[in-house]
């Protein structure tokens, strides 16, 4: 290894030799780097799971749709509504091939003794099938029977196993708002910030459950576009049709992204997660600095001797970068492994969607290398300022 690194660097690999000379210290340094990684991964994971839970309901929709929402609505499950006639107005546009209203409402389900869950209902028109995910096409048909529902197997606080056998011919009954409903199938969505679970029902069933709502006031309207049409252009043109500031028209992806940003920056829960990420990163950087500067302090006499021999500051920066990269690159893997373990345990215990993504792993890897490299360079500056003779 030494010979290989010598050839690679064009000099003796002082950084590598220093690190490996004292295995105990190397382990401690790697543990520090790994810990910093775990901290950042945990915070990013929690924030990511928050974003994930915001995004999941949007994934029920076909991705190439436009979603028209009331201008003031910031989230999917907002209470605001818009007039249904907006749908007919949109159909005038040449590139809009169809639309369907969706009705959202929330209700508490008393699912057993002392157990209650807040259920988000999606009320769908009979023609809603093509606007939704392909896997829902068949189940949605069975909702045409009155007072039927597709129930969410991932609903929090309820044991949903009895619903696994739900089938159009054999509905599983349950009670909601003093009405008897029959579960004719299941979906796997999970609650998030809108509630503890998401149930899909027909619009008629929805109006039975929420008598104060009418078909004239949907929560959102989904619009299908002709193939090849540029969604942004159509959204812009459609917005011109309506009185200013009455509607927001966005692609599903944009709406998803905007709600995540809103939840993270303007709602308390989201802000807490955002702060968590910021603090995790600061602490991670501080740990990296401690590790590197302790290492520099350990070798200051040896560096001072090299300085007295005539080595320039660039040489020392090279050595510390060599160490920083070795520490960051090796310490990353145990950090990644522990974080994975943490994610899995948390997901198992809470049903919150928390998992590793390749982008996050790459981001943290690069961030660790940068943090260690910068810390090392900063720590070396005390050598630049010193007279060699004063260091021994």
């Amino acid at each position: 290894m030494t010979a290989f690194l010598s050839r690679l660097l064009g000099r003796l690999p002082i950084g590598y030799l220093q690190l490996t000379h004292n295995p105990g210290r190397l382990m401690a340094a790697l543990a520090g780097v790994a810990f910093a990684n775990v901290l950042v991964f945990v915070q990013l994971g929690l924030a990511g799971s928050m974003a994930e839970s915001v995004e999941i309901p949007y994934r029920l929709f076909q991705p190439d749709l436009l979603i028209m929402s009331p201008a003031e609505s910031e989230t999917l499950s907002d209470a605001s509504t818009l007039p249904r006639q907006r749908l007919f107005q949109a159909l005038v546009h040449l590139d809009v091939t169809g639309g369907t209203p969706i009705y959202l409402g929330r209700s508490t389900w008393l699912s057993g003794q002392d157990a209650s869950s807040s259920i988000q209902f999606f009320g769908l028109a009979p023609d809603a099938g093509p606007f939704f995910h392909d896997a829902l096409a068949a189940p949605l048909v069975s909702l045409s029977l009155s007072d039927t529902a597709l129930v969410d197997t991932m609903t929090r606080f309820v044991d949903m196993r009895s619903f696994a056998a739900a089938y159009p011919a054999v509905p599983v009954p349950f009670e909601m708002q003093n009405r008897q409903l029959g579960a004719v199938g299941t979906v796997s969505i999970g609650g998030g910030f809108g509630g503890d679970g998401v149930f899909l029902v027909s619009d008629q069933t929805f109006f039975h459950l929420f008598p104060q709502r009418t078909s004239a006031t949907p929560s959102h309207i989904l619009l299908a576009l002709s193939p090849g049409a540029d969604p942004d252009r159509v959204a812009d043109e459609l917005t011109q049709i309506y009185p200013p500031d009455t509607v927001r028209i966005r692609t599903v992806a944009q709406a998803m992204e905007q709600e995540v940003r809103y939840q993270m920056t303007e709602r308390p829960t989201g802000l807490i997660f955002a702060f968590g990420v910021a603090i995790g990163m600061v602490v991670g950087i501080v740990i990296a600095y401690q590790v590197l500067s302790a290492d520099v302090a350990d070798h200051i006499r040896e560096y001072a001797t090299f300085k007295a021999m005539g080595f320039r500051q660039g040489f020392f920066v090279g050595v510390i970068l060599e160490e920083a990269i070795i520490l960051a690159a090796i310490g990353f893997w145990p950090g990644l492994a522990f974080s994975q373990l943490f994610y899995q345990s948390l997901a198992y215990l809470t049903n919150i969607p928390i998992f590793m993504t390749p982008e996050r792993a790459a981001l943290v890897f690069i961030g660790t290398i940068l943090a260690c490299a910068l810390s090392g360079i900063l720590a070396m500056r005390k050598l630049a300022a010193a007279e060699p003779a004063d260091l021994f």
Partner: protein
Amino acid sequence: MKEIAISVSGLDHFFGEGEARKQALFDVNLEVDRGSLTILMGPSGSGKTTLLTIMGCLREVHAGSVRLLDQELFAANEISRIDMRRRLGFIFQAHNLHDSLTARQNVMMGLQVHGRGDPTRHVSAADHLLGLLGLGERLDYLPGNLSGGQKQRVAIARALVSNPDIIFADEPTAALDKVSGMAAVRLFKDLGRSRGTTTVMVTHDPRILDLADRVVTLEDGRIVEVVQAHRTPTA
């Protein structure tokens, strides 16, 4: 016409700042001929190590003039001081070897400071010099596995390996036995004769005094005595 390797003139040096400022050297004047072996002596606190480190480019010149190989050190910028150090070989009182490097690697650093060269050439130069100093069997040993005397010899090899113009040594024989100590000093003298390498050494070792071309004694920051040997440096 003898060449002058080092020329010190009116050198003062201070430690500390403001109220706590203490003068360590007073108006030191000294000339060192190229190829000679000069010894600095004196009681502890006399300023001999301070003078050595100033001449060796390890401390700034506060007042006065120090000319080293025709370069003025007073008010010299950092880059030129660093570059000057590459032409010198400094042997420290504590050997100051790098604990993570083998004897051979420590000596190679003395060559590496001059930039990338053929690593195999570096290895053979290092091995050769270590062999001359009796460490041929210890090339791959870490300092932790070497005795004090062996470490000191590695430090000497490191200082000599790149053929410095001037060698500065602070008690280089303190850890060495009589035989090794004399061998090291004879090596310096040989280098002085054959290559014009100048040596300036701080030492208490009385056995070496006889080998010196000039003995300079300091006391309380001043030069109090200069004894010139009767033989010439080229003899």
